[in-house]
């Protein structure tokens, strides 16, 4: 990697702090090392007590781990945030328009903007959704858009998450933790609050209830206490004051969904589901699913229940569709994209394939359907053998891969074993859409940090940590 990463806190030319970090860096400079060490230990102990943990797949049953929390915040000045916010609203509006179009007239395919087979032969395309009208035309009610900053300091979208994006509970808990550990910082800065997220989320979910339901019952559908994101499911349900249900708690009768309660069956109008499409209804999707509700799709197609996010959104956040999002923005909104993509080679194209095979050691190669940092080659960090293994896989099935330049993700000072050191970060803001409402984004999002020196993988499943994210209002 020839380029130097953009440092979020310090200027490259003289090492001074950027404007948004000025007060913080002055504060940091006078903190005794033992006070900071003690605060870090306190944070760990508190996260354990409160049970803010995630289950680890493939480990001893019931193993729970903390996502490491770093006490140095990621700070965004208001002007940068305003631009990001506008870009995110634009992008998510276009993505919702795209999904609606794909499951109706498919104008974007007819216009030749995206090759039809890219969409219709995609495993994430759900023919069951064709022609179904969803409430308010909203498909991705909750979107998590992964943003990175490149070496030039430009924000770019790395990935759209439109199925069941997670992490928002860490955004909220990290803020709570920072306020508890360092209250003085909050009186010295004007930091935009984030704790109204559950209210906004509930309002958006209620807005998409089936037409005619005056006081809709919203539930959160979880896979259960052993799911890796269970803490977040329980947390959000509690914060919104709605029931946290499992598939076994729900049943379908006369094309309507009910939950089993101590007072008999109770009608459910909106399901905020945190399980994948494949597991929702064993009668339609995976018949072996124990997590779903038999007959759910019948009720859904009849418009008697709303599922958020809608079924079939995966067709829009697939890595093979990602390169077309800027075109979608132009096609549906007639606007130029405010936030750009990362340049992407689509290996199904012969010329892209040839280039990538010639430059593998410099590039990042991703599996189109991979997620969570799995199934990925980071050229500069990979061994010769790994690169050759990927080369064979790519040549065998080039359509399964895309490639991107190895980005010098921006860095932020982070506590490491030997003290503060720069570590690469990204940002996942959560974008909420509802019926008759403006698209809303709580200021900031979840900042994830790759704790290993030089690493670009921020996923919690691969040793990533998190930081509090501040949007300064002045």
């Amino acid at each position, binding site marked *: 990697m020839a380029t130097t990463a953009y440092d979020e806190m310090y200027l490259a030319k003289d090492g001074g702090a950027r404007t948004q970090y000025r007060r913080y860096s002055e504060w940091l400079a006078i903190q005794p090392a033992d006070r900071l060490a003690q605060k870090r230990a306190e944070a760990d102990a508190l996260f354990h007590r409160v*049970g803010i943990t995630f289950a680890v797949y493939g480990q001893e049953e019931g193993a729970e781990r903390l996502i490491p929390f770093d006490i140095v915040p990621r700070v965004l000045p208001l002007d940068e945030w305003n631009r990001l916010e506008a870009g995110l609203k634009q992008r998510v509006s276009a993505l919702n328009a795209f999904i609606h179009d794909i499951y109706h007239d498919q104008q974007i395919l007819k216009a030749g903007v995206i090759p039809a087979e890219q969409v219709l032969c995609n495993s994430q395309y759900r023919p069951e959704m064709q022609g179904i009208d969803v409430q308010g035309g909203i498909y991705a009610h909750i979107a998590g858009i992964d943003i990175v900053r490149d070496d030039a300091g430009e924000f770019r979208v790395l990935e759209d998450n439109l199925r069941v994006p997670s992490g928002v509970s860490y955004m909220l808990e990290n803020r709570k933790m920072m306020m508890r550990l360092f209250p003085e910082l909050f009186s010295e800065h004007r930091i935009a609050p984030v704790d109204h997220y559950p209210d906004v989320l509930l309002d958006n979910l209620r807005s998409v209830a089936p037409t005619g339901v005056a006081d809709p019952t919203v539930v959160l559908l979880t896979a259960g*206490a052993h799911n890796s994101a269970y803490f977040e499911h329980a947390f959000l349900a*509690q914060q919104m004051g709605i029931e946290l*249900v499992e598939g076994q708690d729900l049943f379908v*009768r006369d094309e309507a969904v009910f939950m*089993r309660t*101590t007072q*008999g069956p109770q009608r459910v109008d909106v399901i905020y589901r945190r399980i994948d499409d494949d597991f929702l209804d064993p009668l339609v999707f995976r018949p072996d699913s124990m997590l779903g509700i038999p007959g759910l799709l019948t009720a859904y197609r009849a418009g008697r229940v709303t599922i958020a996010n809608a079924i079939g959104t995966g067709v829009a956040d697939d890595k093979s569709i990602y390169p077309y999002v800027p075109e979608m923005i132009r096609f549906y909104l007639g606007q130029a994209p405010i936030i750009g993509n990362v340049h992407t080679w689509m290996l199904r194209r012969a010329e892209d394939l040839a280039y990538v095979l010639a430059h593998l050691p410099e590039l990042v190669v991703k599996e189109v359907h991979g997620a969570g940092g799995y199934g990925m080659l980071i050229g500069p960090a990979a061994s010769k053998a790994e690169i050759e293994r990927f080369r064979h896989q790519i040549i065998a099935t080039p359509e399964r891969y895309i490639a991107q330049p190895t980005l010098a993700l921006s860095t932020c000072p982070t506590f490491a074993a030997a003290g503060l050191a720069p570590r690469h970060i990204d940002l996942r803001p959560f974008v909420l859409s509802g019926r008759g409402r403006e698209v809303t984004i709580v200021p900031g999002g979840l900042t994830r940090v790759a704790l290993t020196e030089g690493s670009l993988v921020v996923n919690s499943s691969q040793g990533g940590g998190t930081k509090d994210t501040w949007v300064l209002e002045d």
Partner: protein
Amino acid sequence: MLSRTADHLYWMSRYIERAESLARLVDAHYRMSLLPHSGDTLSESLQATMTALHITEAYAAKHERIEPRAVFEFVSLDRDYSGSILSCLRAARENARAVRGSLTSELWVTLNSTWLDARVLAVRGLPNVDIGQFVEWVKERSHLTRGVTIGTMLRDEAFHFTRIGTFLERADSTARILTAHQNDLEPGADATSVPDPYQWSVLLRALSAFEVYRRVYRDVITPFKVAQLLILRDDMPRSLLRCCKEVYSNLRSVANEQSAETERRAGEMHAKLHFTRMEEITAQGVPEFLEGFLARLRDLGDRVAHDFLVPPAEA
């Protein structure tokens, strides 16, 4: 509320109560083991208690003979035995975790912290952990859990199911401890006899009733009065009457369309205890009485599960 949620809350509180009851029993026997010349009485009492609580078989699978220290460790900290205090604390925490959104955050943190600390103690194991301190700690955590429940939870269905769990478990525990000592409780012939004082201290301490007895009766300990205190006293928090009263009133608060018969049976159990006299129970025989009581308690637990926790299959 969701039937599954009610189910987890009910079991959460049953397991915490069970951990406390076991801690009291270990505590009572542990104290006895520290007294001189307690040998035979101690092992007799231990055996009777283990039989009444169905611990004997699981213990025998791991240990050849009943040895007090081994029993204490087995009941307190055995990881594999599902009936140990450690397992109960884990089960309480797992049930709480499954419905943490329905608990107040204080209650969840209390149960989670209890389990985290218990896990550390279990790793250290005996003899590094003082058994007396351990059971004392378990009782305190149970008191704290109950206090947080009462002090922070909304008085809604969730609260009532939590209480039903607590009192069904407590009634079961008191009845079993009485069963273990039922031979001494046959007051028939000699109602004023004073049997082995060690035995009485175990029985009364295990039910937090030693000081209560003195205060209520201001008299020497007689089997008749002990039985009266633990079965029929309305103001004794661990008596069978008190527990049945609590179960009945909490059941009434959550009544649904199909629970009328369950409610009636709970009311009947309460009324029978309320209007009977110790002499009637003695005439019937204490062992027979306790056996019948435990059977009706089991029936009540099954009916609660059927009416509220495991709803009938939807057609």
